[in-house]
Each structure stands twice: as structure tokens, then as C-alpha cells.
């Protein structure tokens, strides 16, 4: 009896210790970057151009991260959500469903560097586009689409069968039912899925090395709205180093003097963005949930 109780106490203590340790590691990581960044950080860092010889800034790469995010989402969201609708509403169990599901699982386990190689061969070399934001976004789509499709499917599946039956019983067609009865209820879940997928775009680097390019053009002219002009910051046909790639690049190609400071500050900005994204998505998901259920 005493031994059993001692084991229980010990195990509880160990589990607490593990939890505290892991959380402390996380806190330490964040604190490290914040503390390391404070002496050199200024708001100008967020907007200035990168430089090989001085501290510079991350303006263009920050813009590129946001731009790539939007572009990837523009490509991924319609396909992912529509595919999710198919899987949840139309697909029965069968070979096709099985094939789609297997494809999902396979792609989500393929190393991102391999997806990057694929993107390089297809979207960079074969198309002749060179390194472009579009090539990067298409590559990111390849491995974000299955995830989003899965998450939307799950969100749609959680809508109770009663909702569908009620709508169908009123004489609505299947599509009307999906459109007006199912989707509105599933929206919060779908949005959470979109946000989760989007978060990965911020962090991905390996798949973008060989697709969106490593250079950081400066002097963005935001009044240039010509989407085909590689000089325009709005154009998908241009190099687009994202913040994650930039951190890797500044370690490998930075000239030395400020590599540390730049990488630390960039990491901090990246972590803060991810944090904000997380909090934002929780808030958005909650707000949507209230909005939908309040209707």
C-alpha cells in the first residue's frame, strides 16, 4: 500500500515536472529572442531594406511573407474547402475516397524539401518562370491543400445530420442544403482550418529555398499595380524571399557583422507573428462561433 501510494506521488510529481520543464523551455525560447533583440530592435527594422553589410531591416521580406501567405491562401482555400465539401457530403466509401485520403496522408508526410525539389523542377525550371512568388505559392499549395481539405472535411462532418435532414425535408436540393444549412454551421471550423494552414506558410523555409528564391529586391514601389511587372511588389512573377527563408539565408550568406542581431530580431518578429496568428485565430473562431450560434 505504501509503495503504491509512493509510486502515485512520484508519478504525479514527474508528470508535473515534465510539464513545467517543457513550458519553461518554451518561455525561455521566447524570452531569449526578446531579450537578445531589445538592444538592437527599432521600429525601422520592420520597414528598412535588408543589407549585407549593416543591420538593415526586413521590410521587403516581411511584405513577402504576408504576400506569399495571401497568394497561397487564394490558391488553396477555394480548392481545399470545395474538396472538403466533396469528401464530407458527396463521397461515399469507395476506391476514390480511399485514394484521396491516401494521397492526403502521403503528401502530409512528404518532407518539405522533397516538395521543394518538385516545385523547383515543375514551377521554376519547366515553366521557365524562374524563382517566383507564384512558384513558391504553388509549391506551398501542394502540401497545404491536403491539410486544409482534411480540416474542412472534418468541420463539415461535425454538422449534425439533423440540420441536413431538416433542410432536405423542406424540399431544398442537396446543394441548397449544403450552401444554406451546412456551410454556415461549419464556417467556424473551416476558418480554424484555414488559419492553421496559413500558419504553416509563415514558418516554411525548406520548400521555398528552391522555388520562391533567395534574393530580396529593395525599393518596393507600391503604386506599381502592374501584376506582370517583376518590379511591382504586387506581382506574383518576382522573387519573394520570406522571413523564414531570410533567417536561414542570413546565417549562410550574411557577411558577418550583424548576422546574429538580424537573425535574432527576425526570429522574434516571426515568433510574435505566429503568436498573434494563434491568438487571432482563437478569437476569430470564438467570435464566429458566437455569431453563428446566435443566429
Amino acid at each position, binding site marked *: 500500500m505504501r509503495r503504491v501510494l509512493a509510486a502515485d506521488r512520484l508519478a504525479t510529481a514527474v508528470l508535473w515536472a515534465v510539464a513545467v520543464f517543457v513550458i519553461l523551455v518554451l518561455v525561455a525560447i521566447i524570452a531569449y529572442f526578446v531579450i537578445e533583440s531589445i538592444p538592437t530592435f527599432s521600429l525601422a527594422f520592420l520597414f528598412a531594406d535588408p543589407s549585407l553589410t549593416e543591420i538593415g531591416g526586413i521590410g521587403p521580406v516581411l511584405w513577402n511573407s504576408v504576400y506569399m501567405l495571401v497568394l497561397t491562401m487564394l490558391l488553396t482555400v477555394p480548392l481545399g474547402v470545395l474538396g472538403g465539401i466533396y469528401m464530407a457530403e458527396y463521397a461515399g466509401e469507395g476506391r476514390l475516397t480511399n485514394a484521396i485520403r491516401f494521397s492526403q496522408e502521403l503528401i502530409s508526410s512528404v518532407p518539405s524539401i522533397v516538395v521543394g525539389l518538385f516545385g523547383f523542377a515543375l514551377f*521554376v*525550371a519547366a515553366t521557365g*518562370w524562374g524563382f517566383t512568388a507564384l512558384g513558391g505559392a504553388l509549391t506551398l499549395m501542394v502540401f497545404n491543400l491536403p491539410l486544409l481539405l482534411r480540416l474542412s472535411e472534418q468541420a463539415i462532418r461535425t454538422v449534425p445530420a439533423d440540420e441536413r435532414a431538416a433542410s432536405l425535408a423542406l424540399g431544398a436540393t442537396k446543394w441548397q442544403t449544403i450552401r444554406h444549412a451546412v456551410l454556415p454551421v461549419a464556417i467556424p471550423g473551416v476558418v480554424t482550418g484555414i488559419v492553421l494552414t496559413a500558419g504553416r506558410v509563415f514558418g516554411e523555409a525548406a520548400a521555398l529555398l528552391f522555388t520562391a528564391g533567395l534574393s530580396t529586391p529593395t525599393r518596393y514601389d507600391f503604386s506599381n499595380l502592374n501584376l*506582370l*511587372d*517583376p518590379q511591382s511588389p504586387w506581382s506574383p512573377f518576382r522573387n519573394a524571399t520570406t522571413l523564414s527563408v531570410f533567417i536561414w539565408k542570413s546565417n*549562410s*550568406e550574411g557577411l*558577418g557583422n550583424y548576422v546574429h542581431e538580424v537573425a535574432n530580431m527576425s526570429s522574434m518578429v516571426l515568433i510574435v507573428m505566429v503568436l498573434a496568428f494563434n491568438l487571432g485565430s482563437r478569437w476569430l473562431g470564438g467570435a464566429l462561433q458566437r455569431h453563428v450560434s446566435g443566429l
Partner: protein
Amino acid sequence: MITTSAKRIGALAIAATVLVAACGGSSSSPAAAATSAASAAAAAANGAAASGVAGPAACVDGSITTSGSTALQPLIDAAGKAYTAACPKSTISVQGGGSGTGLTQVLQGAVQIGDSDVTAESKLQASDASQLVDHVVTKQGWVVVANTGVTGVTSLTSQQLQDMWACPSGQSAPKITNWKDVGGPDLPIVLILRPASSGTRATFKQVVLNGQTECSGQALTEDSNGAVTTAVSQTPGSISVIGFAYYQANKDKVAAISLDGVAGSVANMASGTYKLAAQGHMYTKGQPTGLTKSFLDYLMSDPIQKTLIPSLFYAPIQ
């Protein structure tokens, strides 16, 4: 092979590139032009202040990308900045990636200029290399650097370096594995190599090692000049090779070692007495035109050769 795949879809690809390039090159909506003009003066002043280098004699609009050698990158990057500062309607993207990247990509048409530390012939098949046109724009050098903890060793001979680097046939370790054998402290030597595909490593192997194979088994391999610099500065007993510019930017973090009694300096390289040097190549696929030609010409002009190149620790081409 990338090249075969590229050829197959060649026609399509070229069509696409031409379309994009055409749209890109000729695009100057009135609004954009006005804004660009307005910001031109400021940008030019900015650029000039940053580099202290005069721009090109004549501007050509457009957008090009160069990629390749990280050793050449600081030079091309600075030249590109100076060019676009003076010519606000042109964009020059400068990427690293390594010499092989530059050569492969210029061959594929992914970039307009491929920068390389080595000749195309040494990297590509003859049929591919013959499609490329070589533009030698500078001479660059590398310094053997050691961790600052390695005291008392300021110069090494080629023979010593060979004994530290190369594997005698049938051996898994080099002849010299401790600094004390070359007059330094009692500290194991840690070799830090670049990837076997890198131009820096190829040049060092050819010039210093006489083509002998490196003992890669126990060595660290780091990706690029920057990563090597970080690793050498951190790792006691380490030795590696980095470009002049990277050394100059990190003088206080790593210790330079003279080669055969000759210090790695621009003057020694220019005079030909420092042998760990090579020409910096910029390759185009076929003869250059438009902005590409203008940029290459600019690189050969006085502001670059006489001002920028020495300031970044390269040597001019006479």
C-alpha cells in the same frame, strides 16, 4: 537531369519567359512612371550614399536575376544596388546558392546571369557549357582562417595544408591532426569544409591540395561562407577557407593564416603573388542583351573596377 526536362518543355517555357519578360520590360504605366521619376532622385542619392559608387553611363530598364557563387555575391549585390539606385526602373535581383546553382540556372533560363567561382567547363557537360558565354569581371581570393584560439600559427605552407587536409591513400585521417605539429598549441585540428560541390572547395583543392582528396570523414561541412565563418569563430582548433570579403567583415572573429608566407590581401592577389585566387565568372546563355548587357558592361566600368572592387576586397581585371 534538369536540362533534359527543361529542353522538353523548352518551347513552352521560352514562350512564357518572353511573354513575362516583354511585359515586365516594357511596362511603364504613366502613373508608375511618374511616381518612379519622383522617387528617383531620392533613391539615387540614397544609393550613392550607400555605396559611394557612381552609376552606369546609361540606364536600361527591365528586370534581371543573377544567382550563384556566394563568394561573388557581395560584389554583385553592391554593384546591383548602385545600378538600380541610379536607374530606378530596373531591378537586379542578386541571389546566392552556389556556383553550380548559377551555372545550372542560367542554362535553364531561370536566371539571366550565373555567377561562378569556377569555369562552366569544370562543372557542366561540354555540350551545355558551350551554350554559355563567360564574362570575367573580377579576381577573387580566399583566406585560410583558423579559430582565434589557435595562437602562434600565422603562416602555413601548401605542404602543411595538404598534410592537414588530404587523406593519404588508404588512410582515413590526414597526416597532421594536431596544431602542435605546425607550431601551434596542443589542440586537435577541426577541418571545416564546404560542400564538395562548392566552387571555393574546388579552387582550394586545385590550387593548394594539388587535386588530392579531402579527408571528409571527420570534418564538418558547412553550407556557405557565412555558415563557415560562424563555425570557425565558435569551434576551437578549427580551420577553413573563406572569401576575402567575409574575412574582412569578421576580422575580429577569426584568425587569418598566410599561405606559403604570403598574406591574403588584395594587393598580393592583384600582383599575382597570392595564389589562392580565381577569376570571378559571370555566365550568360548566349550573348547578353538589354539590361543584362548593360549590367555586365557596368561591372567592367571604372566605378566598379576602380572603386567598388577594391573596397570590397576583390581585385580588378586589367
